[in-house]
């Protein structure tokens, strides 16, 4: 596998179950056992009711583009070689919003509201990065 040049996530105690699931190409979301709220990114406490009992639910990994931006210029390693690229907020059908990249379509074709599904890139032996692609082309859609 070629050296992955983009910034890698630092995996924390709160986010380890999330990244472990990504490794298995599953997108999981935290759900509060006390109030039922979903939340993403992963953290140690429910932001809605402060409950400590959080479980992991598997998401279908589908949703729609809430908003996005196309980066034409950046100094970030690994990304500067790939401009233009799309950073987007995807609203999953389960209700949480996910910051991600959109792949599998030309940046000029991205529209707010378009349906997308998760796809995973195995970037090294430990980490798989979830990104989203237009629904019909998403190889990782489940």
């Amino acid at each position, binding site marked *: 596998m070629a050296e992955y040049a983009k*910034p890698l996530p630092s995996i924390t105690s709160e986010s380890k179950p999330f990244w472990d699931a990504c490794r298995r190409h599953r997108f999981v979301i935290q759900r509060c056992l006390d109030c039922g709220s979903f939340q993403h990114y992963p953290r140690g406490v429910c932001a809605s009711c402060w409950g400590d009992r959080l479980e992991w639910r598997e998401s279908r990994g589908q949703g729609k583009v*809430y908003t996005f931006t196309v980066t*034409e210029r*950046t100094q*970030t390693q690994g990304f500067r070689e790939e401009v233009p690229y799309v950073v987007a907020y995807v609203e999953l059908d389960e209700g949480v*919003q996910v910051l991600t990249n959109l792949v599998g379509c030309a940046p000029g074709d991205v529209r707010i509201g378009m349906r997308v599904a998760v796809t995973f890139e195995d970037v090294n032996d430990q980490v798989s990065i979830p990104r989203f692609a237009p629904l019909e082309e998403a190889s990782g859609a489940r």
Partner: protein
Amino acid sequence: MGNLRDKYCIVGVGETEYSRNSGRTTRAMAVEAIKKAMNDAGLGPKDVDGMMSYQQNDSTPSLIVGPDLGIRLNFWVDMVGGGSSTEALIGLAMGAIEVGMCRTVALFRSMNGYTEVRIGGTGARAAAPVRGQELATRPYGMTSAGQVFAPTFMRHMHDYGTSSAQVAHVKVAHSKHASQNPKALYKERVTVEDVLNSRWIVKPLRLLDCCVETDNATCLVVTSAERARDLRQRPIYLMGVAGRVSKPRTDFPWAHGPLSRVAGYYAKDIVFPMAGIGPEDVDLTGSYDAFTFTTLLQLEEYGFCKKGEGGAYVSSGIIELAGKRPNNTSGGHLCEAYTHGMNLVIENVRQLRGLADDYCPGWAEGKHSYDYSPGKCRQVKDAEIAMNLGWSTPATGSALILRR
């Protein structure tokens, strides 16, 4: 502010040259800006006993800079922060004086924002470990302020039909103002077409939608109204302040209204009642312009126009010098210099004094032509109340209301 309204004043302002090659340390620049602001107020080293600054690991602390000027401090604090810090620190300075920790505060920002630490996090920072808030963003290539804010701007265009051409008028207005400002880095007037023809940076932002990057130090001096009466300049009274007001959630900030609802939505309910006025009473604004869009979103949120109508508002001429409520009359961050907000407050202080340092030969005596053609006057006629809308991110902002 209750009984603190009009009890504190800004009595001195100063800055170094705005440049892209200071060739100096932030320490040396801070000393110069503080000295100028204290001279402006008619204060010597024994007259200031409080110092505040804000920085992002890119400046020199108060405890170093103060003694460089022979100032012994009774109170100092160096806060982590960029945009929206100026207004917040002015409020904290009032508090420090009110409780008796010190009597007069010099508040500075010193940064080599072009030659040392640039906004986009280039150089060494690009290889830094990913931790803290960057966990959620850097793996996806979101590293600069423009990238963080652009999705908000994109959604505003989608929800309200705001066009790039409308927003470009912010740059057009500020460039006109800069053409009347000898201190401004970019004095050339630009057109809507110039903005729309400039290259993409992060959509919907083009190059001319983005602020300048500069090396500079800026300083404001705050003291009680009682002491202000004996000083060199006409005191500028602090009517209201809101500091670092934030949205409730960082994970999905649009869960509490549209994504384009920025922190000013919350700050307005603090700052206007404190000052006892409304937006219609404000003669000029300093709405933070890290990008053209930030000016627009804040003017909407503070009620200078209706939500969603910012595009029409900023393209109507209202925000220009000849308009009803000019914004960033110095040229702001888009054209004058980038100081993380302090130059925008300094400008409003000078405007309220009637001493805008433009090309009118008699500006220092308050003699202005009010001719707003290129290279002439930039004084707003009879300006009584000014407001600063400080921006950190769409989720955090500060506000300040000043009167003469």
